[in-house]
């Protein structure tokens, strides 16, 4: 009898312990990411500038992510228009479709979806590349060649991530709105000048630039998290795999969670 009662208690205790341990590990990891961020910022400020490497990363991340960003943005705009049109029709508010598409894309879906795509493409690539360099001792080799690996490897990726994500988001915003327009006007047969008027009348510049501020933050987070995961890889090829998935998962979580708080703070 006592056993039957003890079992759930024991299970509860054990799962609490595991949750606590996970929390402690997470906090430790967060602390180490912050430390890496600090030394990245320090190396960013110190001359010389890593212009060549930064430019290379911008091109790399941009090209890797652009096609997927374009496809995602256009279809997101299209489905948004479709859903809100058919939904709003129930209370004769179809004219608001342009507004809904523009606000949802610029404030929310543009930055978040672009962030998730960049996390999956470029974040994974950063973690895999740095992880491979770590386990094959290329990072040690940089050190022995009197080159600070944070400056040489992480600073360019950090700058590139921070500037490329808002740039991709601008493109996603434009393409998304065009996608919404296309569906509303050509597929659903609504009036095109009404769509545009409704888009511009209610869209404020703050919607756009607050969305871009979020994108900057997401870009910086993806870069520093993915570089962290790659830079501290251990355990050979398997370790590189773990670092890569870890980078994508943690970056994506960070985007989704911080998005709520950033939105609450930016869009009062």
């Amino acid at each position, binding site marked *: 009898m006592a056993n039957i009662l003890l079992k759930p208690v024991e299970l509860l205790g054990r799962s609490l312990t595991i949750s606590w341990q996970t929390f402690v590990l997470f906090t430790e990891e967060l602390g180490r990411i912050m430390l890496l961020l600090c030394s990245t910022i320090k190396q960013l400020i110190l001359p010389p500038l890593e212009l060549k490497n930064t430019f290379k990363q911008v091109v790399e991340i941009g090209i890797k992510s652009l096609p997927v960003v374009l496809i995602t943005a256009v279809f997101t705009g299209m489905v948004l228009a479709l859903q809100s049109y058919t939904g709003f029709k129930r209370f004769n508010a179809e004219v608001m479709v342009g507004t809904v598409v523009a606000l949802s894309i610029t404030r929310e879906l543009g930055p978040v979806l672009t962030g998730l795509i960049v996390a999956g493409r470029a974040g994974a690539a950063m973690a895999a590349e740095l992880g491979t360099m770590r386990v094959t001792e*290329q990072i*040690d*080799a940089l050190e022995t*060649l*009197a*080159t*600070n690996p944070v400056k040489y490897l992480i600073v360019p990726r950090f700058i590139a991530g921070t500037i490329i994500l808002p740039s991709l988001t601008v493109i996603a915003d434009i393409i998304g709105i065009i996608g919404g327009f296309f569906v509303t006007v050509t597929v659903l047969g609504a009036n095109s000048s009404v769509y545009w008027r409704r888009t511009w009348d209610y869209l404020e510049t703050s919607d756009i630039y607050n969305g871009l501020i979020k994108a900057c933050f997401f870009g910086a987070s993806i870069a520093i998290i993915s570089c962290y995961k790659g830079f501290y890889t251990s355990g050979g090829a398997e370790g590189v795999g773990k670092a890569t998935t870890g980078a994508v998962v943690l970056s994506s979580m960070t985007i989704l969670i911080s998005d709520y708080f950033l939105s609450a703070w930016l869009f009062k």
Partner: protein
Amino acid sequence: MIEIVDLYKAFGRNHVLRGANLKIEKGESMVVIGGSGSGKSVLIKHIIGTLKPDSGSILIDGADIAKLSENELYETRKRFGMLFQMAALFDSMKVWENVAFALMRHGKLKEKDAKEIASEKLRMVGLIGVEDIMPSELSGGMKKRVGLARAIAHSPEILLYDEPTTGLDPIMADAINDLIIEMKQKLSVTSVAITHDMHSAYKIADRIAMLYEGRIIATGTPDEIKNTDNATVRQFITGSAVGPIKIEGVTA
């Protein structure tokens, strides 16, 4: 002169170095021998300061490398060249860019001049016409040669070799041994090599030191080591499974 004094290093509960002491004279070729996982790479990484000791010190001409500021450490590193176990070539760069890396980064050389010096260093290690190849297209022995060319490109005073012959066929291994001897004669560098290849150790060493259970348990010239009465060293150099050295995970 390199002096390792009472060096301790642990990774978690794994106490790798436990009071290692070793002195390496200027111009000398020192070979540290020891089993796989005995901490040879950890020891050599302390010499160039990519690992920091838990306690003890590493003195390079009297200056403790663990106590240098970041700038001083990077300045000191310019006096070193290191060949890694798997060569550790930058796989995103061409062979010549690997070799010229330090020259272009610190020497501010023009690309054309740097490439010329890279070709010259590559010739020194017996490679011709590989400048524009990517490292992934090279064989293991060639990678090590490129790694060596990269290590000597900035004319260092001290060369470190992490298992220079491991993973090479015997002929290629001996060619690398010859290169190491040639480097020492031509460049009059101080060198520290770590290896478990006794053939290579006898060939390239002025003195040999054995690392065992975190300490240097014996040092001597190759002849002294060959004729040692230390049972542990004897077992290692003769390559016998029977003796005081415990094989990890195996109970006798």
